């Protein structure tokens, strides 16, 4: 091999390496951008499918109780009475009150849910379990923390409790999927108790106050050793 060939070969290799170093980060950014655009278009399509529930003037006007934050710095909810025409159908009624809850109170400081969050769908199972499917903004725009996430769930559960007696418990989905936590803290793998009336017992963790007496330190019987964890992917 002549010196000229060697120089040409080394030069070609250097150019290839430099080109790869420049091109690969650009390629990665493009792939990420394409994935994000696809996600946004799916979200937009779902929003279009989930038509907002129009308030039917023919529905009887009732005084609905909506639960927003009691104080800007407090972590409890308080009822606000709003007169609304609400459907007698429990699914439509649930959508109407949740959409009003998402719209927020007059004082925006008392919001419990992000303003850009959308209720995509609501289903009611025969056992009284309501499935509330929210857009991803509920998880991504809510202030992170145990207090703020519990406040959001409390406002949803208490509002349904006060206005839709058929809903016994509520399961929250994000973009049609079950997620482990709302924003890193609050457990969304189970359903939250809404109405404590006669209904089948929930099979998952609930958000009601503990029934165990504070002074009771020893359970009635010991369950023994800990089972193996079921790892989620």
């Amino acid at each position, binding site marked *: 091999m002549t010196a000229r060939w060697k120089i040409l070969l080394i030069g070609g290799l250097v150019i290839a390496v430099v080109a790869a170093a420049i091109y690969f980060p650009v390629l990665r950014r493009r792939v990420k951008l394409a994935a994000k655009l696809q996600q946004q278009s799916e979200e937009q399509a779902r929003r279009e499918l989930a038509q907002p529930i129009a308030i039917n003037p023919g529905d009887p006007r009732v005084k609905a109780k909506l639960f927003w934050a009691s104080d800007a710095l407090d972590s409890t909810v308080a009822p606000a009475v709003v007169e609304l025409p609400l459907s007698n159908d429990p699914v439509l009624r649930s959508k109407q009150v949740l959409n009003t809850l998402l719209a927020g109170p007059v004082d925006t400081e008392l919001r419990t849910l992000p303003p850009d969050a959308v209720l995509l769908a609501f289903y009611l199972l025969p056992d009284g379990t309501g499935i509330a499917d929210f857009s991803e903004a509920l998880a991504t725009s809510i*202030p992170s923390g145990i*207090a703020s996430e519990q406040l959001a769930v409390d406002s949803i559960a208490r509002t349904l409790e006060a206005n839709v007696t058929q809903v016994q418990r509520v399961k929250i989905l994000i973009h049609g999927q079950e997620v482990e936590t709302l924003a*890193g803290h609050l457990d969304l793998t189970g359903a939250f108790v809404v109405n404590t009336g006669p209904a089948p017992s929930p099979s998952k963790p609930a*958000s009601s106050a*503990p029934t165990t007496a504070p002074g009771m330190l020893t359970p009635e019987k010991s369950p023994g050793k800990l089972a193996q*964890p079921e790892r989620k992917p």
Partner: protein
Amino acid sequence: MLLEVRNIVRIRVPIRTYFLFGMIAAILTGAAIVYSSQTAVQAPQSGPNTQSPATPPAGSPQSGPPEAATSPFSAQPQRSGLNIVVLDPAHGGVDTGARGTGGIRESEIVLELAVQVRRALELQGFQVVQTRQGNENPSFDDRSAAANAQRGAVFVTMHISSTGLPGTARVYVNSDLPPVADSNGLIPWEQAQAPFLGLSRKFGDLVQGQLTQRFKGSPDGAQTASVRQLRTTAAPAIAVEISSVAVENRAELDRMAPGIADAIARGAAAFKPSYVVASTPGAAP
């Protein structure tokens, strides 16, 4: 003639070899560049048993040596009764937790806070296990496993909120869980906290009482919430959340750290006589 052929072969073979090696080198270099760029974006995801040295963040007033903490799975208590506290600085790695407008990151502050809490607990005679000692992000189950592997332990997960009255602190215990089905004598991992709810409530009230004495405006008793981290922990378990990352100056949070540490340590010491430790790690008392 033969000599001429050999000369030709000798010339052609090195050209091909050089070209082949050159192509392989280019491919390997390209792959290395891609791999390094990917690893630079992704934070390390390691379990709680990773004993990477602690990285004391800049400005930490009391950053202790990392050797003081014990491996989550190595501590084996020799005494009966409560003697281990598992400290869980929440979040870490790519998960920064709550973020304030002033650049305050929950994951960094709780890691610094854990150093002070650990010292306060050790002064009370407790052995301390940390679920993470650096900028790692163990899974919820890995953090719970650090407590479930111990005998005679309590679990404290530490958080900074985004909201709430600044300068206050709240203790949370897990909400009610369905009764544990024990047909085969095992506690389901997904409901490991169920048998400990009463103990957690007792422990939480004691710590909250200490916090309320130091931070006015804090609640009088522990509150309930469906905290994911607590549900799979088979030990008396509480979450301590401090308000908040919304403060203008992080020095406000730093000033709270000694009081938080002292309150947790005194709360654990007050809880110690109440806790009857099970004979098996992870078992109910």
